[in-house]
């Protein structure tokens, strides 16, 4: 049985293409059942997020199945056959396993280490489980992918440290102030990035927001939005001493704040530290402000530098994650191999032979101690015949089933029934829940 992946992602297709092949999360039953109805497909899962659309499947005829999957993707969305060819990638066997493990571990994401993808795959798997399109192999495969992702998250720092300018500002503030609770933010000017940063600060405990703008009405509007307080632009320097964190993004052509004023403010604050975040270009705050004791000034470039350093760190961690994934691929491959018919028959035979040998030797050692060689041979032949007869039916059954979709479960059943190195029991989905993801 072969694991297959066909799909496209932000790396191979622009959003204009991705949006045309996306599957609505509210209507997964139909596409899943249509997929399963394809002749070469045994099991199927559909993963559809804003950055990727992927079909996971198992099949005995990988080549036929791959082309059926490609055709399905275009046909289902009413696209011309072959129109997605340059966007689609396909994997089978070990490569497919590697791909899914990497996607689940967020190594294939636009921002490496972002936590959403794992949840999205869990949801996709949930649909497949609900509509019973995932069988023995995909069930185990996806559970494995979740545990691999969890391992990657706990054993590497792939999700550590902020990779957005706004969040980097929050992390820096935490390094300065410890907790942000009870701290006050002043927004000078309005700008998308500024507002976003302010929102991040509020989400992380900042209790008070003051807003100032050259147009007072805008300040009032924004202040309402943040449940804060509007300050007239000309007055803001007089309020600075109550402010811990200043976010500026005005369109002013020159500096609106210099080191002299900030020094005064710091003295007034009895040296309590201040953090200035200057997102404006041209800059609003004289860079010499950074030289004032207990004052920390970061401009756009500084923040982007922090983000770049953090991203670099994540990429370093990603290398470690690839190592973990290779380990897990080997382990999963080993399990997959136990589902093959031939080794199962061999294992079954040797299990029976083992039992026969042990019992015969026991009897020869005791009750039949004194019989001659001829009788011994007869006993051997007799017992061998018995196990051959017993094994005939199950082996024929396994061989006949070889090209049938239910083989995997039959093989699995035989292995379990006769205790042939049973695969480990499957974990529950809830056990794999990742707290980091809910951050």
């Amino acid at each position, binding site marked *: 049985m072969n694991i297959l992946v066909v799909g496209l992602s932000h790396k191979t297709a622009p959003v204009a293409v991705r949006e045309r092949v996306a599957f609505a999360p509210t209507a997964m039953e139909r596409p899943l059942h249509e997929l399963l109805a394809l002749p070469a497909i045994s099991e199927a899962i559909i993963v559809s997020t804003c950055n990727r659309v992927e079909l996971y499947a198992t099949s005995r005829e990988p080549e036929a199945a791959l082309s059926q999957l490609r055709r399905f993707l275009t046909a289902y969305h009413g696209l011309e056959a072959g129109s997605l060819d340059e966007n689609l990638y396909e994997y089978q066997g070990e490569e497919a396993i590697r791909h899914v493990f990497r996607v689940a571990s967020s190594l294939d994401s636009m921002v490496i280490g972002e936590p959403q993808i794992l949840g999205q795959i869990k949801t996709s798997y949930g649909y497949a489980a609900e509509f019973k399109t995932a069988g023995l192999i995909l069930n185990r495969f996806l559970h494995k992918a979740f545990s691999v992702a969890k391992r990657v998250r706990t*054993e*590497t*720092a792939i999700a550590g*440290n902020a990779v957005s300018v706004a969040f980097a500002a929050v992390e*820096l503030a*935490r*390094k*300065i*102030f*410890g*907790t942000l609770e009870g701290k006050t933010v002043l927004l000078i000017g309005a700008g998308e990035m500024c507002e976003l940063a302010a929102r991040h600060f509020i989400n992380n405990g900042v209790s008070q927001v003051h807003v100032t703008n050259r147009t007072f009405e805008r300040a009032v509007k924004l202040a309402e939005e943040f449940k804060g307080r509007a300050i007239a632009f000309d007055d803001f320097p007089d309020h600075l001493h109550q402010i811990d964190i200043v976010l500026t993004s005005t369109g002013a052509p020159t500096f609106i704040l210099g080191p002299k004023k900030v020094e005064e403010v710091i003295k007034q*604050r*009895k*040296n*309590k*530290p201040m953090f200035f975040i200057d997102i404006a270009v041209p800059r609003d705050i004289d860079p010499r402000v*950074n030289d004032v*004791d*207990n004052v*920390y000034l*970061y401009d756009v470039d*500084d923040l982007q*530098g*922090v983000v770049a*350093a953090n991203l670099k760190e994540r990429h370093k961690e990603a290398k470690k994650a690839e190592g973990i994934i290779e380990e897990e691929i080997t382990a999963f491959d080993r399990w997959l191999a136990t589902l093959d018919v031939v080794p199962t028959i061999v294992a079954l035979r040797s299990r029976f032979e083992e039992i026969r040998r042990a019992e015969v030797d026991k009897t020869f050692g005791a009750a039949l101690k004194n019989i001659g060689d001829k009788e011994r041979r007869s006993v051997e032949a007799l017992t061998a015949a018995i196990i051959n007869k017993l094994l005939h039916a199950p082996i024929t059954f396994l061989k006949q089933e070889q090209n049938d979709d239910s083989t995997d479960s039959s093989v699995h059943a035989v292995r379990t029934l006769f205790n042939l190195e049973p695969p480990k029991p499957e974990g529950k989905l809830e056990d794999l829940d990742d707290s980091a993801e809910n951050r």
Partner: protein
Amino acid sequence: MSFNILLFNVTLLLYLIATILFLVEVSARHLKTSGVARWMLWGGFVFHCAALFFRYIEVGHTPVASLYESLSFFAWALVAIFILFDLRYRLAVLGAFVCPLAVILMLVGSAVIIGGVEPQQANPMLQSKWFPVHVTFAFLGHAVFGVAFAAGIMYLLQERMLKSKRFSALYYKLPSLDVLDSINYKCLTFGFPLMTLGIISGAVWANSAWGGYWRWDPKETWALITWFWYAALLHGRLSIGWRGRRAAIFAIIGFAALVFSFLGVNLLLDGAHTFKSLRGE
């Protein structure tokens, strides 16, 4: 080797392992070795207490009379105070800065015994009940200021990185500036009274031993200078709003002065506090 020295060596070994483990956690980005480090440190501390006890039995007075004994007691106080701070702040990185200090003190102590130091002759001065009071207050004060010294260095490192916007691996392990500054303040509020009590009890002891409270020997002078230094910092913090970098630098210089008045005065200058005269030679 007498039994207390053996215990001392076991203590040193455990402190050394703890220090290495703390340093490993701080320098490697994703290793968590501070848990084991803490066990080692606690274990070492138990042995240290035992070492001090058996030393007391052997020499017959509070074992803080020779240079070796003082170094060992200083290290003991430092670890005790660190453990208290660690219970409150849980900072592996603080261990990485404080424990090496304890290990260095112990190593110097070890070098002193290898250099050959005989147990003291009985000295009536050491039987005074003020002697243990004096050394306990003095060394606990030293230890608290040792923690402030470590926090001060950590503050300066972190502040440097935040200002220059270049971050090393250590950055991710350091606590916030606010926490480091509050450690500085806590140390001051505990260390200053301890130091004051140390000086007062020392004066009382001197009076009972020599019939005079203050003799202006170099150690007393240096202790007084250091006391004024910390008094200035405390005053600056409370009334002028000194904090952050300035407070950190003050704590670092203050501790340097303390160590000088503890070791330098003994080694470079002469006076009643040198261990020679304590031994009555």
